């Protein structure tokens, strides 16, 4: 059972991928209606969905997909033109298949009516003569195919199917395939049992049987081959055509000739090559008897060869690995990194050990392998992490559909331009990025870009552009969503913020600060609420999600010109390079990507601070955050403190620490829910010696320090007021 469900799961995954592919292709097709390669891609994907769907018991999907396939086939034969209606229908059917797939997990209900409507609409699109002459899609397609391929209503095929012995282990049921053949038309099936061994040697899980099937059907050779599409690789499949006329002759007047032919095939059938030879002989026979022309046999054979070649090409140079296996690998690599750090630490400690003489020899001996180990570990880490990296383009593809559908719904003309689709990000980051990006793009479509008329009035081109780009920047990936729509006006944000009492009327805020206000919960400058956006729920959710990914988000905008969201995200969530620092007895890790420089907080500098938490570094005033103060670390600071200068998106801050110990590779372990709310801490990591060090969340720390200062000032002011009041009494 578990075996079975495993295949079902594989089918589900594959189908989801195929559906994505279909969507991609259909959107391409919309742009280039002449591109037959797109049609072929869609057709192939649909066909695979149908074929394997029937095989794994997704009969509803198979049946539904069949209708789409029929329509697509007509497009392929340029009988049916590529129209907007058709594209809409195919997109809708893609959604329907997805819904059916989801429903099969038992989570949701699928609306069968939608599917019926799609099928009905598709039928309407089909040219009269085709939809009129036959009732079922199957017939339409076959008829059509035969008209072009064979010029005959029925043809008879001799099929010899010798499955690989392992076939049942692969989850294929030969009877299912044969059942499918039988359903195509009249058939005679003859089972070949000579390969079955004696009972004591019989392996029940293997398949020793082969079948000879004589099938008279309207379906084309391709249709028959398609039945075997999933077993083609290991099994021997011979399909030979016998012309109607010949079959009639064989059946009626010379009933034994067919058997002789089959027998002859058996004898010379030990190897595939010989099978091909055997095939030719049958062909020769047929030619000799004047039933078939040489060309027909040759073309059939070359078709078969071409198909085999195509199949071989389709086997891509990649393998499918379950993501849980990758996660395990990442975890193990994480452990290895920790152990490696421990070894390095021991080696480092050894250098300062007192009994220098004892350890001298062993240390120098170990130095080289330990260094190689360090290098290898780092490479292994990068390699393992790299495996989880997927290009962000997969997500971008999804948005094309979103833009298309929404702009149509709102009567806007919007083009989406993507850039840097090949930029790679950790799979988990990409997955969690999807919702925020959807929010932002919806926002741009709904509020950003105006209707064509409004745009013309403003002297802009009718068609709005949404630009989605991704690029690596240091250890981060920056994703930018930009639209050339109405932008947002900092002043209207200010007005709204004052109205909502989020800021004081006289507060001085930079443009950037004003833009940052839109990320507050319940803040929306949109005048109206639509079902797409405008409730002000989107942006704060976006911000929260980006924050939880360890990233940041910023807005840049000019009224009537553009609106640009830029998201900066870490490449991976699993392992980061950090700077190990100490304050009191506690170790902390600063993400190295954020550290700009380290310096000492000399007495001279302290003297210049005048008790305030600011200092001058290279002529620039930088606020200081004293880790000991903010974290209430007991004890006195050492005489010489250090500053790690960190750069966030917006500010540069110096963090005052006791000691800076050096670089460390950290495997990030998230804290549980109790500790996740800790301010200024983004996670924890395990150090070489087994202790836990906390990873500092720099933006959180800055925010926290700011709040702390405000609170203290309030206390001071409050105290002043009360003393003043008491003095007045």
């Amino acid at each position: 059972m578990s075996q079975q469900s495993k295949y079902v799961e594989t089918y589900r995954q594959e189908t989801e991928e195929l559906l994505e592919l279909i969507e991609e292709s259909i959107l391409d097709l919309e742009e280039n209606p002449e591109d037959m390669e797109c049609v072929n891609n869609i057709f192939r994907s649909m066909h695979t969905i149908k074929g394997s769907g029937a095989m794994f018991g997704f009969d509803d999907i198979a049946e539904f997909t069949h209708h789409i396939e029929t329509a697509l086939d007509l497009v392929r034969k340029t009988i049916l033109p590529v129209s907007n209606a058709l594209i809409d229908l195919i997109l809708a059917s893609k959604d329907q298949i997805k819904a059916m797939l989801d429903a099969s997990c038992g989570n949701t209900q699928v609306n069968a009516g939608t599917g019926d409507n799609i099928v009905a609409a598709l039928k309407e699109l089909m040219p009269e003569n085709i939809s009129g002459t036959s009732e079922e899609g199957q017939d339409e397609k076959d008829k059509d195919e035969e008209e072009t391929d064979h010029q005959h209503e029925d043809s008879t095929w001799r099929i010899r199917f010798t499955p690989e012995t392992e076939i049942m282990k692969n989850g294929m049921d030969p009877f299912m395939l044969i059942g499918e053949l039988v359903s195509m038309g009249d058939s005679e099936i003859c089972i070949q049992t000579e390969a079955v061994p004696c009972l004591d040697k019989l392996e029940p899980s293997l398949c020793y049987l082969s079948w000879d099937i004589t099938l008279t059907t309207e379906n084309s050779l391709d249709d028959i081959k398609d039945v075997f599409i999933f077993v083609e690789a290991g099994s021997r499949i011979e399909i030979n055509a016998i012309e109607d006329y010949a079959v009639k002759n064989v059946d009626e007047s010379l009933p034994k000739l067919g058997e002789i032919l089959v027998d002859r095939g058996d004898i010379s059938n030990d190897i595939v090559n010989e099978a091909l030879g055997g095939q030719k002989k049958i062909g020769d026979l047929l030619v000799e008897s004047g039933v078939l022309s040489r060309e027909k046999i040759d073309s059939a054979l070359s078709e078969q060869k071409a198909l085999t070649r195509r199949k071989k090409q389709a086997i891509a140079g990649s393998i499918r690995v379950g993501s849980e296996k990758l996660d395990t690998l990442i975890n193990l690599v994480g452990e290895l990194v920790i152990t490696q750090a421990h070894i390095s630490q021991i080696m480092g400690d050894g250098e300062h050990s007192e009994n220098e003489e004892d350890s001298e020899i062993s240390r120098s001996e170990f130095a080289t392998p330990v260094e190689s180990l360090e290098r290898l570990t780092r490479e292994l880490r990068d390699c393992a992490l790299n495996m989880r990296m997927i290009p962000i383009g997969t997500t971008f593809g999804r948005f094309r559909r979103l833009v298309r559908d929404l702009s149509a719904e709102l009567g806007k003309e919007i083009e989406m331009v993507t850039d840097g689709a090949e930029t790679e990000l950790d799979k988990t980051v990409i997955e969690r990025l999807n919702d925020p990006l959807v929010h932002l793009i919806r926002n741009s479509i709904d509020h950003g870009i105006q209707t064509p008329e409004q745009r013309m009035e403003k002297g802009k081109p009718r068609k709005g552009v949404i630009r989605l780009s991704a690029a690596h920047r240091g250890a981060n990936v920056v994703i930018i969503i930009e639209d050339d729509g109405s932008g947002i006006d900092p002043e209207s944000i200010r007005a709204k913020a004052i109205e909502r009492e989020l800021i004081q009327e006289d507060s001085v805020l930079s443009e950037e600060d004003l833009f940052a206000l839109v990320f507050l919960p319940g803040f929306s400058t949109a005048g109206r609420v639509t079902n797409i956006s405008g409730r002000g729920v989107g942006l704060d959710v976006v911000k929260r999600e980006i924050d939880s990914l360890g990233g940041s988000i910023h807005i840049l905008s000019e009224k009537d010109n553009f609106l640009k969201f830029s998201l900066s995200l870490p490449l991976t969530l699993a392992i980061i390079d950090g700077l190990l620092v100490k304050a009191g007895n506690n170790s902390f890790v600063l993400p190295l990507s954020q550290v700009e420089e380290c310096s000492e907080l000399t007495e001279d500098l302290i003297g210049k601070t005048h008790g305030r938490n600011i200092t001058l570094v290279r002529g620039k005033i930088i606020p200081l955050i004293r880790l000991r103060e903010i974290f209430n670390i007991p004890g006195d600071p050492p005489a010489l403190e250090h500053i790690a200068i960190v750069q966030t998106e917006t500010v540069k801050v110096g963090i005052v620490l006791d000691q800076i110990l050096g670089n460390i590779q950290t495997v990030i372990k998230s804290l549980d829910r109790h500790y996740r709310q800790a301010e200024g801490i983004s996670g924890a990591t395990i150090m070489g010696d087994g202790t836990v060090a906390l990873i500092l969340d720099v933006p959180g720390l800055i925010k926290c320090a700011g709040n702390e200062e405000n609170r203290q000032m309030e206390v001071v002011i409050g105290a002043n007021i009360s003393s003043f009041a008491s003095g007045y009494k």
Partner: protein
Amino acid sequence: MKSEEENANSHQYLTFNLGGEIFAFDINSIREVIDYADITRVPRLADHLCGVINLRGNVVSVMDLRLKLGMEATLKTEEICIVVVEIDLDGEMVQMGVLADSVREVIYLNPSDIERPPRMGTKLHSKYIRGIGRYKDDYLIILHIDRILALDDNPQASGETEGESKKID
């Protein structure tokens, strides 16, 4: 002891000392008991959230049960240990450590030996108590581990507590 084991209805509990009193947890939620390890304090949080430890490569958070139950903070002694429990935290199975002064034994209790917590007199939040067990002329308090380790309703308020100096450092 044997006769109690044979009773099908009896249930196992792990008993431990906390400020001179005996408390118990249902054994089903207990993963293991480990020696006291260095706890890394997480700053700016409520006092009873005393930090995190490394449990074979996993970062597990630890709670000072005495503080949570309104007693004095746990003192660092030889016998102190960490009871690692597994609980359902809002649908997420998490392991957490709980500080105990010392672990006593695993005992069997029949449901008939367990009474509902009295409305008053325990000086404890009654929602934290699952029942009072009678055992050898004495009583012990069976704690509701899921509720004790559940997320605080108002984390902000507890985070504000002043004077976060810890006995364990």
